């Protein structure tokens, strides 16, 4: 592989590149889905290729191919340089990558049981048991139990001297139960919605989350929701469970701290950010108990890796400290740009550049952007709430292009009256504006409730890229929130 990498870098430089890197990536996947007692999906995927990223004439170019052979490397390197030179037609200034990054190393996801080595029979049996439990509940129309595995073997080499090899392994599981009645449909999911909960690690992840032991409970909840009353409308206190709060952090903190959005380079698709550079270090993002970090090192997190796709070592960065906004997710280029505005900003990237495979360029992506735990128990938060709604598991999400106005729906909710959990309500929604919402956060549960929830479906970029991100969260309470937006 070193020969291929060296050839690509040499060719790019010979054609005029002042910087070049190559990523050679093999992605293997395995997906199994049991739907209503039938194994509807049993598929293996394997995609392999390389992408060459260059700076030439002070501008970026990138080209990629699935054929890793000498002649194709030469063609793709030359094309990447030609593309960079075309980019230079409209450049305002030369690309500035800041200090050089030269790292040689390896990283492999720690795991106990290699999930690709576990027999298909064992995995199918696990899902069939989950499916059987879900469908044992009368009224269930569709039960889906899924297991997904992904392994990325990545080589990164650059003209600055980096050569890094990583093998990242992910395991994910989930069960989704659908109950239907006249004009009504309700779903419940476990451990998280939209397919599955996922983390870096081995098959032990699947066993820990025990789908068969939880499928019947969520099935009963789905059926009960059909006849539950509609979530009332009004302004009240809400308590969000960990998975819903993880997505709230993702949408209303994780995206607006991406420095490429802040600088406008994602404006055409995902949008920009309300956390503009003048707010850096000088903006009250939330209440004093709100502490948020970005990290790529927490074991098991879906956003955990050894190096990002610019070859920068994984690290931890404070994002919100005691409610104050103090940090962004950065790339080499945007870190250098920020420093021109804020001379005290870090000179180096905090390793947030990731690409969705060999055929995409790295862009700034969340790793594990997490709300740190507080001091409460969930029972105490409920007991301390006179009137409110406890909302569980995300059902829908939508947020504006600056990440201010959001609206979320959850699968399940309970009223809270005089410190006690009351009746179940359906179609719960809440809406708000980001800083006001986080300013109303007055109770966060302790580390016993904290977990890094995986979001394996974060879309961004043109052409589109999907990233796998993690979000540590424990249940928390927010005051004065508008709930019940649906008619």
């Amino acid at each position, binding site marked *: 592989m070193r020969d291929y990498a060296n050839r690509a870098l040499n060719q790019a430089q010979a054609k005029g590149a002042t910087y070049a890197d190559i990523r050679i990536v093999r992605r293997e996947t395995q997906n199994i*889905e049991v*739907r209503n007692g*039938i*194994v*509807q*999906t*049993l*598929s*293996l*995927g*394997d*995609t*392999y*290729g390389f992408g060459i990223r260059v700076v030439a004439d002070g501008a*970026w*170019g*990138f*080209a*990629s*191919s699935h*054929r890793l052979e000498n002649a194709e490397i030469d063609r793709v390197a030359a094309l990447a340089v030609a*593309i*960079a030179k*075309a*980019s230079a*037609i*409209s*450049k*305002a200034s030369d690309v500035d990558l800041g200090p050089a990054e030269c790292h040689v190393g390896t990283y492999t996801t720690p795991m106990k049981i290699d999930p690709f080595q576990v027999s*298909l029979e064992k995995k199918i049996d696990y899902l069939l048991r989950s499916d059987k439990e879900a469908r044992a509940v009368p009224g269930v*129309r569709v039960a*889906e139990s899924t297991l997904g595995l992904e392994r990325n073997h990545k080589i990164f080499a650059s003209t600055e001297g980096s050569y890094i090899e990583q093998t990242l392994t992910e395991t994910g599981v989930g069960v989704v139960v659908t109950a*239907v009645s006249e*004009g009504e*449909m309700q779903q419940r999911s476990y451990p998280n919605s939209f397919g599955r909960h996922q983390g870096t690690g081995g098959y032990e992840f699947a066993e820990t989350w025990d789908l068969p032991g939880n499928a019947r409970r969520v099935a009963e909840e789905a059926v009960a929701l059909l006849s539950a009353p509609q979530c009332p409308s009004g302004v009240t206190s809400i308590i969000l469970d960990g998975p819903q709060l993880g997505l709230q952090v993702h949408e209303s903190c994780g995206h607006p701290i991406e420095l490429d959005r802040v*600088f406008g380079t*994602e*404006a*055409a*698709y995902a*949008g920009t950010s*309300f956390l503009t550079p003048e707010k850096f270090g000088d903006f009250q993002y939330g209440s004093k108990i709100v502490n948020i970090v970005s990290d790529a090192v927490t074991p098991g997190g879906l956003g955990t890796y050894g190096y990002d796709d610019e070859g920068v070592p994984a690290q931890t960065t404070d994002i919100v400290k005691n409610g104050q906004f103090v940090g962004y997710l950065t790339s080499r280029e945007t870190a250098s740009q920020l420093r021109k505005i804020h001379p005290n900003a870090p000179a180096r990237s905090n390793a947030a550049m990731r690409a969705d495979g060999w055929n995409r360029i790295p862009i700034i992506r969340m790793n594990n952007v997490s709300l740190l735990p507080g001091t409460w128990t969930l029972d105490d938060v409920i007991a301390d709430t006179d009137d409110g709604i406890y909302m569980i598991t995300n059902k*829908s999400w*939508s*947020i*504006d292009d*600056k990440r*201010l*106005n959001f*609206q979320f729906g959850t699968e399940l909710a309970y009223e809270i009256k005089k410190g006690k959990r009351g009746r179940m309500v359906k*179609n719960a*929604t809440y*809406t708000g*504006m980001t800083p006001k919402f986080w300013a109303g956060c007055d109770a966060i549960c302790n580390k016993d409730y904290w977990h890094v929830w995986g979001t394996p479906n974060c879309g961004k970029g*043109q*052409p*589109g890229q999907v990233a796998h991100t993690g979000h540590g969260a424990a249940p928390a309470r927010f005051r004065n929130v508008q709930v019940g*937006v*649906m*008619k």
Partner: protein
Amino acid sequence: MLGESRLAEIAQQVLRQAKADQTEVMVAGTDSHLTRFAVNTIHQNVSETDVAVRVRSILGRKTGVASGNELSEAALRKLVRSAETVAGFQEENPELGSLPGPKPAQKVDVFVERTAECTPVERARGVEKILKMSRKNQLDAAGAFSTEANETYIANSLGVSAYHRGTVASILTVIMGQNSSGYATAASIDVANLDPESVGRIAVEKALSSKNPTPIEPGEYTVILEEAAVADMLFTLGWMGLGALAVQEGRSFMNGKFGERITGEKVTIWDDGADPRGLPLPFDFEGVPKQKVTLIEKGVAKNVVYDSFTAGREEGKVSTGHSLPAPNTAGPIPLNLFMAPGKATKEEMLASTKRGIWVTRFHYTNILHPVQTILTGMTRDGTYLIENGKIVRPLRNLRFTQSILEAFSNIEALGKDLVLLKDEWNSVGTCAPAAKIRDFRFTGTTD
């Protein structure tokens, strides 16, 4: 692009290796290029060459799928063995029927050489036309200019053999001022049909006219939705409930409504994979020719689309050619949607509106309730207040929470032009007119 004969050769290599009772192979090649710009400069500029091979093996009533992108004989042999091995581990699926047999699909000529051959310099020059207009007006332009050639070959051991190739070119731009933005887009199979200057001009005009937006109380308003906003709702409707699996599982808004009125009578929606006004693919991912299917006719629920699996579950049904690639648990989906245009121009819709809101497009829409077709999302890139037939001032963006079928029941006028909107993620196109709709529900606003 490898061409039909090379793709056929790859498919035949796979079928020759196969030992399963039935085998299907899909070979899909793409050469795609995208020049992306922001803050009035090209900041990302990419190219991709790939060929994906997907094999579905059927052993009795068991099925397995394997996919890869390596084309050596050894790699293809491994792929076939993988698909057959995983099929062997399957449980019997009593509902699994046969792969489809051969049927001729209509040929649609949508491959334009100059789109396939478009160079990075040509795209950069097109982008520069937009950037110049933006700079001249002290605005910031962002967007993407993409060109793509793609080809698909489907074959199976029962004799199916179908090949299609096409090209797509598209430009999208968002041009921003201090507190305003404008949007415009265009897509075509022929890059020569794209006019970057026209796209840039529309977006610049919107960015200038939406400066200093003011708030308005959320509530129910008459709206004029431009084509992109209508296409967003149409595409969502297709995913939510216009496929047979959603109906068979009782989770579609079409359940119990066939033959009944579900929208206003101005609404007729169909799917047609061979209509060159869209982005055609004349057969599905099982190689079955796509039929033109009328889904809603003059407001009455008529049909949903089928693949082989869902057709096999109902007496007298045949696949309409709407399968997605295997393995597929979403069921058949209409991917070439059209909504019948009306007779009004957008200017006429505006002139006839006493008070209302003009919406350029939606942002980040998501389904709240699929059976009630309730959707939420934000407006973006040009939202204006209409009074007495005129646009009087720009508005801050609004959040809507609205049933699509209810909105389609309240359509007062449809635009006379059908516009092709390309999906951001795939070469899938939806053709929609603009619409004037009363009592559209806005539930929030933003800064």
